[in-house]
């Protein structure tokens, strides 16, 4: 039987090499393209009727828009709305990648969905881009005062210790952001695969054991439902953390003040 990790394998579809650099078009790239095309078509076809009383599709698109707009406004303040298009793009991309990877396409031979976000390369690229953007925006807005986010409001002698700690903590953001998303996807899909393996192994064992296969089957149904929730939730968490990090760069002092008052 196929190993549970086989679903994460990246296979070249169109091998391409420039010099010694491998830039093959892989199943990962294919699914990224599918995600982008699907997002574009769902969003444009959803809002194109522009009816006052929205159809279901238009309603979904409008609700997504409103949700992300509310999220940006509440997490980054009105100044953060400039970054709404970026946050929306990140959110929708992660959401669609998470959900498309759960499509039951495996029933067709030679077709199986690939979760783009289950690879740390992809999520880390997103996270490091966000991280770089936070620094650039912060430096652009506040100049060198941006570095005051490393200095919490404490007595001077504590700063010697706290500034390095804050710097390490700041640098750990892209890693925790990317690892969280990637590990959630990886763990969920592996779990689904393992449970699916149980069902098949028990069902083909014959006799009384075949009846037992209903137990992992029931668990599989529950886990699948949970996976859809996690897919949505992780996209949401990814986007809201993007907002929070951006808000640090935009409203330097508001955020440091908001963090301090309890003691």
């Amino acid at each position, binding site marked *: 039987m196929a190993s549970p990790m086989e679903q994460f394998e990246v296979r070249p579809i169109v091998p391409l090499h420039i010099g010694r650099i491998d830039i093959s078009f892989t199943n990962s790239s294919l699914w990224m393209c599918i995600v982008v095309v699907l997002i574009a078509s769902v969003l444009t076809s959803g809002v194109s009727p522009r009816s*006052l*009383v929205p159809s279901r599709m238009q309603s979904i698109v409008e609700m997504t828009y409103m949700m992300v707009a509310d*999220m940006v406004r509440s997490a980054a303040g009105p100044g953060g709305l400039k970054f709404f298009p970026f946050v929306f793009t990140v959110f929708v991309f992660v959401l669609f990648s998470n959900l498309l990877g759960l499509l039951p396409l495996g029933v067709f031979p030679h077709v199986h969905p690939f979760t783009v976000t289950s690879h740390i390369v992809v999520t880390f690229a997103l996270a490091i881009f966000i991280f770089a953007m936070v620094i650039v925006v912060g430096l652009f807005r506040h100049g060198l005062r941006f570095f005051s986010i490393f200095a919490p409001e404490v007595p001077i002698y504590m700063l010697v*210790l706290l500034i*390095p*700690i*804050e710097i*390490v*903590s700041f*640098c*750990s*953001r892209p*890693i*925790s952001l990317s*690892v*969280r998303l990637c*590990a*959630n996807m990886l763990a969920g899909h592996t779990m689904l695969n393992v449970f699916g393996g149980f069902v098949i192994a028990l069902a083909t064992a014959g006799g009384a054991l075949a009846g037992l296969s209903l137990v992992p089957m029931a668990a599989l149904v529950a886990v699948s439902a949970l996976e859809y929730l*996690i897919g*949505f*939730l992780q996209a*949401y*968490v990814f986007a*809201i953390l993007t907002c*929070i990090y951006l808000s640090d760069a935009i409203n330097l002092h508001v955020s440091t003040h908001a*963090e301090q*008052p*309890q003691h």
Partner: protein
Amino acid sequence: MAEDDPDSRRLAELKERLQKARGNRQETPPPERQQSQLGIAFRLVTELLAAVIVGGGIGWALDRIFTTSPILLIVMFLLGIAAGMRNVMRTARQLNENQNGPRR
């Protein structure tokens, strides 16, 4: 005049009906409040681990540059643990605020 316009009258009616329908229903909490215990635990663990890894990594790299192995690795590793704790506390505070609403 605007009241005589059938469209605007229908629109006003619709607004009323919508408000009535919405009033009967509880507002669904934002997704972050529905987060499972497992999700929260997982989030805290990644915050802690990421800082430790980054701290250790910075220390290791600096050691290689200045050939002071293993002093900086040890120092930065400890700082990483401290930063991880700070991350965890900050995240927990954020989650608390999300769950109970902002403090006073």
